[in-house]
């Protein structure tokens, strides 16, 4: 009950979240099978949020979406749904496995926003966005 206990609780909570979403080791004394199930449940919810932010990316993968998302983000510290979908779409495009509908969704985002892969995407100025759209179209 003394104040010295408080860091114990804070540290336990932080260690648990680190383990569940960012690949940290499971805290001592907890049931690993139950933590596995919890970790996957959190990933399903995270995949759902990314699917809402990137509907064509998720829809293009159909029933495979959860597997694709988990393969990329299990143990990877969360950023936000827009960035996570963006990262994944870019990686799939680079690997040549981005479905066409998802490619057009990505192109639309890249025309409107600038994303450096490390911080929140920023809206492009209007002339810059229009120019990118033109270039995209001419590339075709």
């Amino acid at each position, binding site marked *: 009950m003394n104040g010295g206990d*408080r860091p114990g609780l*804070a540290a336990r909570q932080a260690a*648990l979240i680190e383990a569940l979403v960012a690949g940290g080791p499971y805290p001592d004394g907890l049931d690993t099978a139950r933590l596995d*199930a*919890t970790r996957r449940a959190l990933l399903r*919810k*995270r995949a759902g949020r990314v699917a809402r932010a990137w509907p064509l990316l998720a829809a293009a993968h159909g029933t495979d979406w959860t597997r694709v998302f988990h393969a990329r983000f299990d143990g990877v510290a969360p950023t936000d749904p827009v960035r996570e979908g963006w990262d994944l779409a870019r990686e799939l495009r680079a690997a040549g496995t981005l479905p066409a509908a998802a490619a057009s969704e990505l192109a639309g985002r890249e025309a409107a926003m600038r994303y450096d892969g490390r911080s929140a995407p920023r809206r492009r100025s209007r002339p810059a966005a229009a120019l990118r759209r033109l270039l995209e179209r001419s590339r075709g």
Partner: protein
Amino acid sequence: MASRPTGTGVGWRPEIASVLAGTAGLGFCEVIAESLDPAADLPAPLRSQAAGGTTVIPHGVHLSLGGTEPVDPARVTHLAACAAAVDAPIVSEHVAFVRAGGREAGHLLPLPRTRDALDVLAANIARTRTELDAELAVEPIAALFDWPEDEFTEAEFLTRLLDRTGALLLLDVANVHANAVNRGRDARADLDAMPLDRIAYCHVAGGARHDGYYHDTHTDPMPAPVLDLLAHLVQRCPTVPPVMLERDGRHPPAAALRAELAAIAAVTGHPAPHELPAGSERPGVGSRR
């Protein structure tokens, strides 16, 4: 201030707004506080529900009342503003934490049921209530695991928390079911031990099995054991509490959703929500948002 929730309610979500606009007899609805912008207009269908006399309860999911850091004042202000915007008599949050060490879990996580955690919760609940005109109800969550440092059962922990803070109980019957099923315990015994005299209102929902456990995902029809457990609760309570359906995904057709509401009402004895005759939807609710 709008009246306390009564009867049969539902979690208002944009995806089912049009179905709810065409449904009469809803006693109350709950809306995710973090989905509202109290500085702007409410979504038109929700505004119509409130204007039509349906009590609206803001339900927070990101306050992290169980986090060891003090609750974020901006989040408390937002929750209080949501309550003011819908004239809510009650707001609700969870007995859980969602962030720690600078990271977000993305969903509600269980606390160790210790005296230390009670201190943390009581302090954060007190901080939250300083800004709230509405009463606060707290909801125990569904969790797949327990902490080895637990000093209390869940019912003991909640009873202590409510006694100490004066908060009300939002009892999620489906969570009681899930927690019991996933630990091989008797859900009725777990429910009987809860501080039932503190109930403000109840949640029910349907879930799904993953990895060998039952998850309260709000994405499926209510399973029979959840309705059976609700019937047990009704028998245990001198006054039948208001009960609402939570549905957060794989939204069913209108008829199926209303059938779920009717099934809840059949168990509680509250009036059953029903479809409004064609053309008699409340004005303004036809707009898709």
